[in-house]
Each structure stands twice: as C-alpha cells, then as structure tokens.
C-alpha cells in the first residue's frame, strides 16, 4: 500500500461546471486517499450546509453540487478549506454506519469463464485464485458506471492485472469481474474489458425496493466461494438478495 500524499498540493478544491466543487485527495487510487474521500464526504453531509444540494464520493474525491446563486463559490470554498484543515483526513478512521456483506459467489465454471485466464495473469493456479479472491475483504471504493454498481478494492498485489484488450461483449447481471486490484460487481448485463471470474445472484439495484441501492460507498464485501449446487439453491431462493447477509460494522 502506498503512503498518503503528504505534499502541500493535496487536497485540492476545484470547480466543476457552474454549480459544483470537487475536493481531490489524490490523482491516483490509494487506500488512505479513498478513506479520506469517504470520511470527508460523511463530514460534509454532517455539516448540512445551506445551499449544498447533493454530495458524492468517487475513488479519491468528493463532489458537492450547490446553488451558485445562493451560495457563493468563494464562501463554499472557504467552508471546505476550513473543514479540510480541521483534521488529517488521510489518517482518519472510516465513517460510521457502514456494513459488512458476505455475498455467495460461484467462481469459474461456465458461469464465470475467465477465472483460469485471470489466475494465470496473477501467477496463481485456479484453486489458489479462488482461495485468494474468496478470502479478500474488500471495500466499496465508489459506486458508478451503472446505478448501485460498486468498484471494490484493494485486492492483493498479485491481482494488479490489466484490462483485456478485447471487450467481452456481454457479462450477465451479478457478474464479478477483476482488473487493477479491483472487483466490479455488475448491476446489469454489460460489455466489459475486465475478466469475469465469479458469478453472484446479488442485485445491486432494485428500483422498486424501499432501499433500491443495496451497497453504499464504504461498505465492505467478501465474495465467498460456494459450490455450483449451493449457488443453484441460492438462485432458486427468491426471499434473499442472492443469499447475501449484511451486518453492521462496529
């Protein structure tokens, strides 16, 4: 894990269009920069500043949308700078209210045909790869690309494998794909350049549900291996979301 950027250049506040500001904690993904973004966004939400209409966090940055005719750019920038200066966000503990999800996953087989190829790139055999990926406790770094769809990391260094040059024309909803020490868990069927190593019955986005987005940035997820038979049972069980069980992180 790389260390937190300590130079005077970070964090930086930059405008986004007419009605946004972005607080950047780094220009490449590190665990402390992602944690800083998650924690800082939670702090901004707690501040509940008048004129701020929406916030979100990406891998290493926090976005604020506001009404620029009622809250001046200079005033919001000053408020943000003061909050940034109030503590060391790179060494702050992650925010409260997060959950730990265990999501049953069928690795390999015809359901996830690129496991062997990905394992080879990571320098592992298939059994080692399943053990590695199945044991990893990853964090939802951010949600994006499709509603409720998580980017999760970081995986052990061996999994710093590239995207493939040829795009997979389609992986199914619930596909677990890997590249760059990260997982993506697909919300919908989609083309992807990442390698399809596991399949889940988990739905990231359920528009009709009271809480349509299952995962939140900062949640932690373990994709534990199940057999083809167990997976078939989970698929038949309509009562749970893919057999996943969330518990509060204390």
């Amino acid at each position, binding site marked *: 894990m790389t260390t937190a950027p300590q130079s005077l250049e970070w964090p930086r506040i930059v405008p986004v269009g*007419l009605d946004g500001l972005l607080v950047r904690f780094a220009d490449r993904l590190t665990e402390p920069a992602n944690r800083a973004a998650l924690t800082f966004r939670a702090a901004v939400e707690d501040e509940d500043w008048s004129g701020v209409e929406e916030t*979100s966090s990406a*891998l290493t940055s926090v976005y604020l949308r506001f009404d620029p005719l009622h809250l001046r750019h200079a005033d919001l920038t000053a408020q943000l700078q003061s909050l940034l200066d109030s503590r060391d966000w790179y060494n702050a503990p992650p925010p409260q209210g997060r959950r730990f999800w265990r999501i049953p996953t069928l690795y390999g087989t015809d359901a996830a045909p690129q496991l062997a190829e990905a394992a080879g790139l990571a320098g592992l055999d298939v059994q080692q790869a399943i053990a590695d990926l199945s044991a990893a406790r990853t964090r939802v770094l951010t949600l*994006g*690309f*499709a509603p409720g769809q998580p980017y999760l990391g970081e995986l052990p260094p061996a999994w710093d494998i590239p995207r493939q040059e040829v795009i997979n024309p389609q992986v199914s909803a619930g596909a677990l794909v890997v590249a760059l020490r990260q997982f993506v868990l697909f919300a919908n069927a989609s083309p992807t350049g990442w390698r399809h190593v596991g399949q889940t019955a988990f739905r990231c986005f359920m*528009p009709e549900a009271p809480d349509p987005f299952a995962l939140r940035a900062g949640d932690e997820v373990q994709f534990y291996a199940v057999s083809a038979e167990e997976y078939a049972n989970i698929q038949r069980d309509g009562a749970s979301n893919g057999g996943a069980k969330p518990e509060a992180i204390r």
Partner: protein
Amino acid sequence: MSVLQILSAGPGVTVQDLGRPGHIASGLSRGGAADRLALAEGAALLRQAPDLAALEMAGFGGSFTATSPLRIALTGAPMAAAIDGAPIAWHASHLLPEGATLTIGGARAGVYGYLTLGGGIDTAPVLGARAVHLAAGLGSVLAAGQSLPLGPDSGGPVGEVLSVQDRFQGGTARILASLQTDLFDAETLARFTRTCFCRDARANRQGVRLLPEGEGFGLSSGQSILSEIITKGDIQIPGDGAPYILLPEAQTTGGYPRIGTVIPADLPMLAQLPAGAAVRFAFVTLDQALEIEAKDRASRQSLAARCRPRLRAPEDIADLLSYQLISGMITGTEDL
C-alpha cells in the same frame, strides 16, 4: 380520471419530468427532460407546475387520443401536429376534444418535442420522479396500445402561443473550464474555440457526439485520468478526439478528459442539435456564467407572463372591417 391513449408512437417517446436529483453517490444520474426549457414552456402555457411529467418525443411523435377533453401544449423541437387532420400551431396550447385524434409527426428542426398535458402524466413515481431513465433501466419507451393516467387538471387557458428562443439548429455554446481543461495546451484550446463541429448521427439521452472540422482534440497517449464526477454538459474527449457532450442520462463518473463544460443555459440548444447541424464553443468566466444563469432563471420565471392569446382581439386588428367575420361555425378550438 383522464387517460391518454397511445395509438402509435415514434421510437423515442418517453415520460419525462425534472428527473431524480440526489442519487449521484449511488451511481444514478438525474435524468429528466433533455430540453428542460421546453418542459418549462409547456408548463407555462398551461399555467401548471413545472415539475409535472410530460411526453418527450425524440425526433418523431405519434398519435394520441384522450378519454375526456384535455388541455395540451406543444413545445420543444417543432413538429407537424394536427387534431383530427386539421393542422395546429407549435409552441402553443390547445384543447384536445374528447375522442379526437392528435397526430404529431417528425421534427422540422431540433430533436426533442414535448407534449404537455393538463394535470400532468400521473404514472407511479420511482425514487421520487416519473422520468424514464433508459440507461438505468428505469421505465421504457412508449408503444402503441399503452395508455397513461393523467392527474387532475386545475384548469387554465388554451389557445395561447409563446415566442421561444430558437435553439433548434445549432449555434454557439458557452462553456466553462472543466476538471481537465488544463491538460490541453493553449494552442489546442484556441483551436477548439475556432473549430466548427457537426453533430454526428450518434446521439441519445446519454450524450451527443460531435465531429470536428479538421483534426481531433485527443490528448497524446499516456494521459490516464482517475475516474471522477461527470456532470451534464461536460465535453469529454475520448481517444478518437471527437468531443462527446454529456446529457441527462450520462454515467455519474468517468475517466475521459473533459475539455470544458457547457453552461446550463445553453444545454437545451446542445440537446436539440439535429444531426448535421453545426455548433461552436466559446469559453466564459465563472462570473459571466453566473450572470447568464441569473438571467436565464429570471427568463424562465417570466414564461407564463409572456404567453399570449393566439387569436388577436378584434380591437387590436387595425383593418377589422376587411375581414370576413362570419364564415361557418366557430367552436373556439380552431388553431389556424
């Protein structure tokens, strides 16, 4: 309860409102009408709330009939429209009699036409809005045989017209510097603002691709950008160097460099850019953009006050006596 029946529909007819703000953190963009000004114009013509849902028609309308008399307004991209075969005016409100057939054809300019209905479309809200979000899989395009429930119409005028800003054939879009503008050198930025772009055939509610006259604007290889927030109006420059303007259904984050962001007041023109139309870009400062935004909001506030009866009052007609005043029946719903 009134119902609008869809007798036929073009390929891109959807229910739209102002969209669902507040879900960027969960990866869901706001969505909503591509031309929000047209939605506001329709609401103003009917004197109803601007957040009621209307029909957005991409390129082509359809034919519709109602189970009771209905106030309607037609705004956005001008399309050929008729009630029971008699042509009716665009940028105008009308009464659609019970059982009459409203037909709306292809866009004469622009892309997105809007049919606003008295009382608004009353489909079930999902996540606080009725807007169909095609990219997110929230709802879908309308098809023949479907019908839409309408809310109660509190009443108001019909037979009015509204003069609108012509935003249906391209022009110059004002832009602000964006997250990666600094990655482009001064000469490239200058060339960007000198270049005339033509809208590519590839366009939908997620975005519009533009083809530059002359060479593209791609950065030299090796520019890897960490994925961060995307907002409506962002001008992405992908590897092929052809700008891609992001619209309401854009993804929430992305890693392509953005050379600038179109200001909100000029987004309706970009969304309405028909295939083959030309557009240019001009940088403005933040202060200039704020001033434009204040004026734009004030202008939207005054839309209802600017609606006027389409039929001129007799005392306003100077050569009144030269008109043949009685010729057949007048029902009050004529539109020509």
